[in-house]
């Protein structure tokens, strides 16, 4: 039974930890109190029945257990801080105000993306506190020892409490800023899971799933925000391709070569549904455009039937919003499909300085040079990419390309 209940606990975890964090002004007490409540729930719900309001039950029990802990600590240290002194006055079982819940969850996520932390630690902290992954799981995802991850998380929590986030109700502009920061962190969390490395596929997929869950949580809490609907849509489109993206040996399969029958069509349908919702709300931000690009790929029955004209236009629009060299590089990749490899190669010249140490720049150049028949230069470009720290699966692909270029050259000279 407890396995069934675990699923209920993890569903309620973000809202519960968020409310308890506001209540106790302390993430760690909140986490401990919630764990305690879950342990009690396993015993109580099996003996009696699952309550009609599991979240309300968990919150009530967690508050009491957290208060116990706080009181014991106060007695021990003989400190009575004003902060907790009037807690007994708070009515425990008022139905939660949806606006309050929304701000609580947003605050909790915002605490995790504290500016004092680097991105990886922000993601690790959110996976630990909000998603409830174990330290071991997170360590596996980031390819570090569990002990190292434990230390990183402890340090991160210390940094956060040294400069705490305010518990006042945020102003509309603060709220918008938090939502933007939190969305970016979730976007990077998904990319972390999606990126290729040696860590096992299972845990990487789990990280993607947690990012999807958090994106869905934001949509639930902020139903009128188009960018958050688009973010969820984008994730669903990407994640739908997970089975087609790896061959049986764990090697990566490029989008063009994927077996489209392996794509998860129900997930893509939901991606389209969320994109339509985002369209209805309006406001074409960067997530909305990226989701629209992913939708074009999902729509194409075969790689050679992809509507590259539309995709190229989307990238042009994205570059207006995010005029970065990497977005421009993606735009040029689309231009290669609509205007040809030679045109794209010429366009890439302007990016050389900015992206000289970006390995995708060189692998893309290699591919385009191959297309124009310049196998020698293509091989050189791939070799440059090899020196720029590719992950193991990427290295395998690049080595394959270098071998193919060599063969072509031998074929031409022989």
């Amino acid at each position, binding site marked *: 039974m407890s*396995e069934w209940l675990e*699923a209920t606990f993890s*569903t309620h975890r973000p809202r519960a930890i968020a409310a308890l964090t506001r209540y106790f002004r302390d993430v760690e007490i909140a986490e401990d109190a919630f764990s305690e409540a879950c342990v009690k729930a396993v015993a109580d719900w099996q003996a009696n029945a699952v309550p009609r309001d*599991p979240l309300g039950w968990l919150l009530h029990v967690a508050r009491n257990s957290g208060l116990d802990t706080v009181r014991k600590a106060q007695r021990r240290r003989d400190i009575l801080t004003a902060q907790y002194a009037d807690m007994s006055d708070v009515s425990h079982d008022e139905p939660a105000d949806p606006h309050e819940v929304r701000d609580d969850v947003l605050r909790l996520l915002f605490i995790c993306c504290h500016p004092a932390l680097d991105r990886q630690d922000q993601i690790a902290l959110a996976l630990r506190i909000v998603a409830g992954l174990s330290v071991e799981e997170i360590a596996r995802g980031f390819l570090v020892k569990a002990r190292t991850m434990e230390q990183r998380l402890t340090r991160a929590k210390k940094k956060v409490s040294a400069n705490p986030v305010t518990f006042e109700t945020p102003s509309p502009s603060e709220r918008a800023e938090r939502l933007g920061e939190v969305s970016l962190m979730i976007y990077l969390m998904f990319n972390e899971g999606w990126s290729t490395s040696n860590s096992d596929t299972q845990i990487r997929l789990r990280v993607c799933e947690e990012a999807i869950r958090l994106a*869905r949580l934001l949509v639930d809490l902020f*139903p009128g925000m188009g960018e958050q*609907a688009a973010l969820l849509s984008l994730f669903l489109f990407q994640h739908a391709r997970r089975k087609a993206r790896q061959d049986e040996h764990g090697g990566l399969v490029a989008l063009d070569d994927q077996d489209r029958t392996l794509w998860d069509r129900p997930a893509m349908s939901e991606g389209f549904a969320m994109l339509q919702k985002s369209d209805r709300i309006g406001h074409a931000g960067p997530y909305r455009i990226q989701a629209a690009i992913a939708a074009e790929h999902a729509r194409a029955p075969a790689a050679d039937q992809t509507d590259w004209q539309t995709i190229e236009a989307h990238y042009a629009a994205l570059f207006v919003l995010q005029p970065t060299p990497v977005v421009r590089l993606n735009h040029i990749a689309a231009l290669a499909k609509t205007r040809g490899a030679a045109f794209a190669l010429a366009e890439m010249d302007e990016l050389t300085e900015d992206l000289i140490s970006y390995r995708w720049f060189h692998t893309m150049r290699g591919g385009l040079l191959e297309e124009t028949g310049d196998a020698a230069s293509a091989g050189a470009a791939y070799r440059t990419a090899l020196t720029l720290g590719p992950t193991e699966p990427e290295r395998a692909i690049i080595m394959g390309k270098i071998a193919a270029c060599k063969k072509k050259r031998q074929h031409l000279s022989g």
Partner: protein
Amino acid sequence: MMYAIAIYGEAGVFESLPKDKQDEVMSGHGDLQDALGKRGDYLSVKLMPPSAAVTVEPMQASGQKPLIVDGPFAETKESFLGFYAADFKDLDEALDYARVISSPVARLEVRPIAWAGGVMSTD
């Protein structure tokens, strides 16, 4: 009489279940679909999560355009996840079939259908 077996639950819980428990739930649905398919027409619908929903609010006054709200109808603890509809001999039989898909993560409501039109009709 036609009955609906409506499925309520907390959105996202099924997705959080370990694989073997998900399979257990799905095999119940497989069994029910097989059993219903053998005895005639039935309808079975699984809804997308509430995050995909948009709500058309009741009209404020006749002739006015209805207000469309982004989001599900209500922030309920348990959401309407999907339903089956089929002809059953009586309530007992409908309940027997409902039991096939019973699981710890779903509440099932068995309710007679007053009228149905379209591909499956009470007329």
